[in-house]
């Protein structure tokens, strides 16, 4: 999601960049031009890294290796087989992308610390192979005599021509990357970074986004590697070493990991830094580490983040006007689809263990279309576990989940969400930096998200405009239209709850699962929420509401179910269940149950 501050900063930096380029071309020595060409190549590397490390938020330690593979491929092609730079480009980019695709299968689903380790190990393997395979790679000595960049049969001489070629690629790559991450896909990445589980329940295919980001990282790294080897004119295993990876990480952190402008600014700063710190002599590499440490601590969003902060100060968000509410498309709720007597959701014999603990023990229950079902039970009785199973976050050890006639037991969370099951979380999971509007809008477009769509759609994305308009309608429906343009991090708890419900409604769910929606709300807010939930139900959406607050739930729900120790112990009207002997026992103990009439 490109905010206005970010756009302002990009324009500002772009203008500065053009001025600097003109100055350098007019006055620069061959040495300066070469240094800046290298900086441009690292900018390409970092633009790629921004996809996996910035957008997808995964600490990959393989980016240097992808660049190295591209460099080796292009270098060996030209030295051994006489293939020029441009003809070999499909292979020198394709090889790292292929490597990324192969390692993505086992590695991408790993948790962050294992992902970092796995990518580190793969880098070590590639380096060792490059050093060992002397006959092909030249081993530790590498291969000299790599020809210069060749474009369309013309050799690009060193100096200003190489400088312009490299930076031409940087501009192209920057525009391409900007297109790929703007609009809804940028928001989807933000949701995934903050809470991958929540993203999946909004219908976002997180595995696919992460996979795409990883391949894109390798794509740009391969291009950077090919340019690098023809600029420094020698193949050397140094490029596969950990120090290239560290340089890339430093660039991302220093410039700002979430922004393309950050990647470019960071590259220029980091590659030129040793030049400026020349007075430090042999200590300059220490200065490098100190700079990284200081930035990590003091400016986690890098220099571009700092500039955006300034931009927000200069042009406050107050002046933002919300879009007009767009009419929501006719819902997918149709009365004839499921006759009222067949359940919308049927759970049969659901079993779930955590180690030795039985969280759910042969639970069977049905939710009828159109009803509001209240679910109660003491803490730890398995209520949230049940919702997690329905939404695909947990796999049950036994039993079946059937939604509207089809078995969804083994489906993945985003597939389940796309079929019309939405939920909220006990602890609100919103992206603090994004406006309430965009937090809702991202769920509107989740099923049509994709890199191809982002590339193919025109400059001002109509999908984004529609999604924002519809999000405005949903915020109005839930009574949160006044705070639409506020960043969610600044909102009070009651508002955050409502934004989260609006976001769940954005999926046009046929079944909405609410996990303690009234917790932390005052009485006025509770009454308002109950009224609006009744409206939602009247529009045809079936509700399952988990609550401890009986004053809120009893008047709202048509029917109650009580869980205790993973079993359904009572079912019926709210009054029946509340006075049930077993329910009172579960909540208050045997003594209290004995006092019942």
């Amino acid at each position, binding site marked *: 999601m490109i905010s206005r501050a970010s756009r302002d900063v990009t324009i500002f930096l772009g203008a500065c960049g053009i001025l600097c380029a003109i100055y350098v071309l007019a006055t620069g020595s061959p040495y300066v031009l070469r240094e800046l060409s290298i900086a441009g190549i690292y900018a390409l590397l970092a633009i790629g890294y921004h996809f996996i490390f910035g957008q997808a938020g995964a*600490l990959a330690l393989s980016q240097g290796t992808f660049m190295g593979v591209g460099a080796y491929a292009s270098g060996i092609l030209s030295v051994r087989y006489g293939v020029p730079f441009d003809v070999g480009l499909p292979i020198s980019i394709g090889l790292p992308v292929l490597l990324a695709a192969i390692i993505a299968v*086992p*590695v991408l*689903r*790993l*948790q*962050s*610390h*294992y992902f*970092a*380790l*796995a990518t*580190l*190990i*793969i880098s*070590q*393997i590639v380096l*060792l*192979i490059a*050093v*060992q395979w002397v006959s092909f790679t030249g081993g530790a000595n590498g291969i000299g005599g790599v020809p210069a960049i060749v474009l369309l049969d013309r050799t690009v001489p060193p100096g200003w021509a190489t400088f312009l070629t490299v930076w031409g690629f940087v501009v192209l790559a920057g525009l391409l990357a900007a297109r790929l991450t703007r609009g809804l896909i940028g928001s989807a990445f933000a949701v995934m970074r903050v809470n991958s*589980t929540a993203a999946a329940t909004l219908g976002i295919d997180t595995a696919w986004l992460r996979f795409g980001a990883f391949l894109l990282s390798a794509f740009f790294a391969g291009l950077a590697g090919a340019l690098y080897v023809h600029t420094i004119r020698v193949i050397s295993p140094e490029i596969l070493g*950990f120090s290239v990876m*560290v340089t890339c*990480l*430093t660039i991302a*952190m220093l410039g700002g990991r979430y922004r393309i402008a950050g990647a470019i600014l960071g590259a220029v700063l980091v590659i030129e830094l040793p030049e400026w710190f020349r007075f430090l002599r*042999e*200590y300059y*590499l*220490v200065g*490098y*580490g*100190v700079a*990284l*440490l200081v930035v*990590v*601590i003091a400016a*986690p969003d890098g220099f571009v983040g700092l500039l955006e902060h300034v931009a927000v100060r200069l042009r406050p968000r107050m002046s933002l006007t919300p879009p007009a509410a767009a009419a929501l498309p006719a819902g997918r709720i149709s009365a004839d689809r499921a006759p009222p007597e067949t359940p919308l959701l049927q759970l049969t014999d659901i079993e779930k263990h955590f180690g030795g603990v039985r969280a759910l023990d042969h639970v069977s229950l049905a939710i009828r279309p159109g009803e509001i079902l209240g679910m109660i039970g003491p803490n730890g009785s398995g209520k949230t576990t049940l919702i997690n199973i329905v939404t695909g976050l947990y796999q049950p050890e036994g039993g079946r989940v059937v939604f509207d006639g089809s078995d969804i037991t083994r489906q993945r969370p985003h597939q389940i969400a796309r079929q019309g099951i939405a939920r909220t979380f006990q602890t609100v999971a919103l992206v603090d930096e994004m406006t309430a509007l965009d937090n809702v809008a991202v769920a509107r477009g989740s099923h049509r998200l994709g890199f191809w769509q982002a590339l193919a759609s025109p400059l001002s994305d109509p999908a984004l405009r529609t999604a924002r308009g519809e999000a405005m309608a949903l915020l109005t429906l839930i009574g949160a239209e006044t705070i639409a343009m506020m960043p969610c991090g600044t909102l009070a708890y009651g508002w955050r709850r409502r934004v989260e419900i609006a976001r769940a409604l954005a999926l046009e769910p046929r079944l909405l699962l609410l996990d303690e929606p009234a917790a932390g709300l005052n009485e006025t807010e509770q009454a308002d929420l109950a009224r609006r939930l009744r409206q939602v139900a009247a529009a045809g959406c079936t509700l399952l509401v988990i609550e401890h607050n009986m004053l809120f739930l009893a008047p709202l729900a048509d029917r109650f179910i009580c869980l205790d120790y993973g079993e359904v112990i009572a079912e019926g009207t709210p009054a029946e269940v509340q006075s049930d002997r077993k329910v009172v026992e579960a909540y208050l103990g045997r003594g209290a149950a004995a006092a019942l009439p």
Partner: protein
Amino acid sequence: MALQLLFNAFSLGAAYALVALGFVLVINATSAVNFCQGDMVMLGGFTSVALAQGLHLPGILLMPIVLIIMAVLGIVFSAVAYFPLQRRPPETVFISTIALGIILQNLATILFGPEPKAAPSLIGTSEMAFGPVMVSRQALAILVTAALLILALYALFTRTQFGRRLRATAQDREMAAAIGIPVTAMIAGTFALATALAGAAGLLLSNTFFVTPTEGTNYIIKAYIATTVGGWGSIPGAVAGAGLIALFEVVYPAMPVIFQGLGEGKLSSALFSQTTSTIVLDIVILIILFVRPQGLFGEAVRVRA
């Protein structure tokens, strides 16, 4: 022959275990990866080299001094690279410790030069015969010293109030703070312990394997692998994992000697070289991660939803 190899593997594994233990202690206390744990080994090695030049003492007498110096440095490092970031996502600490590692590596290069240096041996390097097994004094001393340190750590954790508080802090920080444990001091103490253990490993390993400014990366990968194999966050698991790595590193290159049938010549020596050994180990770890994404023995640290 087999006994000889086994002994060498135990000796090496004990030294690796010290590094892995420090690594896993920090994970438990902070749920963050301390990526400069390997550089701490390097630092311990160079500290020993420098102390030996000034004091002319055998390694065994340098050990307490190295432990104290490294513990103090550990507290300083936690103040620089952990405490300013403790409210941020754990991966931030990963990056800050990479930065700290770069600083230390380059300072070491400036102070000691890039050439390998050897730390003093603990009690000498001559060989002793135990029946059919020839044992170097250094390898034996490494095994005994590391085992004593591990036992001391075990006693610290189970027998002292300080150790119990450390464990409480690692298990649940908020709870520990709520019952009046000085959490910040406990975490600083964990860093001190972790760094001291790495320093001890540096002294132990730098006689046989020498010490260079950039060797930290090797040790961090080993500690990381040991922790992954042994179960993320498990202390006995880290020791077992370190032992397995050492066993592999010692036994794999010796395969052609153990099994004469594996043949000799160029192919065999390429197949069982040190480098191939590292590659094979790496691939085994990748397969483990692929088959069991939660580590070989499951995770001891539970991620809360």
